[in-house]
């Protein structure tokens, strides 16, 4: 995000407390990202829609008291989303799994059924492993791979330094590798 865009965004945020159009513009800019974040954290389209709606309803009620402390508006929205997802997980106390048929899968051009089935199985296994990670590591992966944010931007959103994000990323990859190996071994034994 450029500085000009940041300034423009903060101006919108200032107006959004009273001006519906300004809030509508903020909504249009961020609804997709928040939806993606929640979708990958919950693994369910309907829950993602429900929680996305609650994020923006909460934002609408509190945008008037938003204070510019040098962090992007999106970081504030992600924090609301993060808290709601944490409550959602606590309420369910289980980790749901993405319905395989709903998941967007990008595979190499191949129409061979065995290759496609293998890719789908790998995809499912990976997403299961991602969802077993702690919330902050899931957030990091979603921001990095789904949102294509840089480490510096992720740091702003998560309230950490760029170095801390790099370090967390490497620890996350290692944890993910161990998780995948473990689940693979369990499957082989089963």
């Amino acid at each position, binding site marked *: 995000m450029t500085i000009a865009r940041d300034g423009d965004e903060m101006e919108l945020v200032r107006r959004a407390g009273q001006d519906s159009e300004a809030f509508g513009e903020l909504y249009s800019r961020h*609804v997709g990202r928040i939806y*993606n974040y929640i979708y990958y954290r919950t693994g369910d389209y309907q829950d993602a829609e429900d929680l*996305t709606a609650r994020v923006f*309803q909460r934002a609408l009620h509190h945008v008037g008291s938003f204070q510019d402390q040098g962090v992007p508006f999106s970081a504030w929205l992600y924090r609301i989303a993060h808290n709601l997802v944490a409550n959602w997980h606590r309420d369910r106390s289980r980790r749901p799994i993405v319905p395989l048929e709903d998941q967007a899968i990008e595979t190499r051009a191949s129409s061979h059924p065995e290759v496609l089935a293998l*890719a789908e199985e790998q995809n499912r296994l990976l997403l299961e492993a*991602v969802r077993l990670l702690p919330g902050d590591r899931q957030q990091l992966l979603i921001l990095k791979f789904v949102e294509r944010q840089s480490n510096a931007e992720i740091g702003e959103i998560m309230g950490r330094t760029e170095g801390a994000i790099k370090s967390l990323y490497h620890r996350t990859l290692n944890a993910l590798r161990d998780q995948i190996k473990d689940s*693979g071994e369990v499957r082989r034994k089963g």
Partner: protein
Amino acid sequence: MELGKKLNARKIESWLERSLVPVEPSPGFVSELRGRLVVLRGSRMPSPWMVVLALSALLIIIVTWFGLGLRLVLALLGLIGLVERRRRSTET
């Protein structure tokens, strides 16, 4: 399955790149939520200052009407007293 082979960070990254792809919320959901937010904004509680202002205006109106009513009652009583005094003076 690739699990038998050695998994390294590069391989997991490329795997993540293929699996964690952006998903689009349905256009119906996006527009319906926008509509709900507009309705919510319309029905939102007014600010405390607006409430204070409205209550003050209401109080001023009540006091004004009360004052007017009191004046009317006093005028009526005065008129009655005047008529009564005139009636007594004519009787005597």
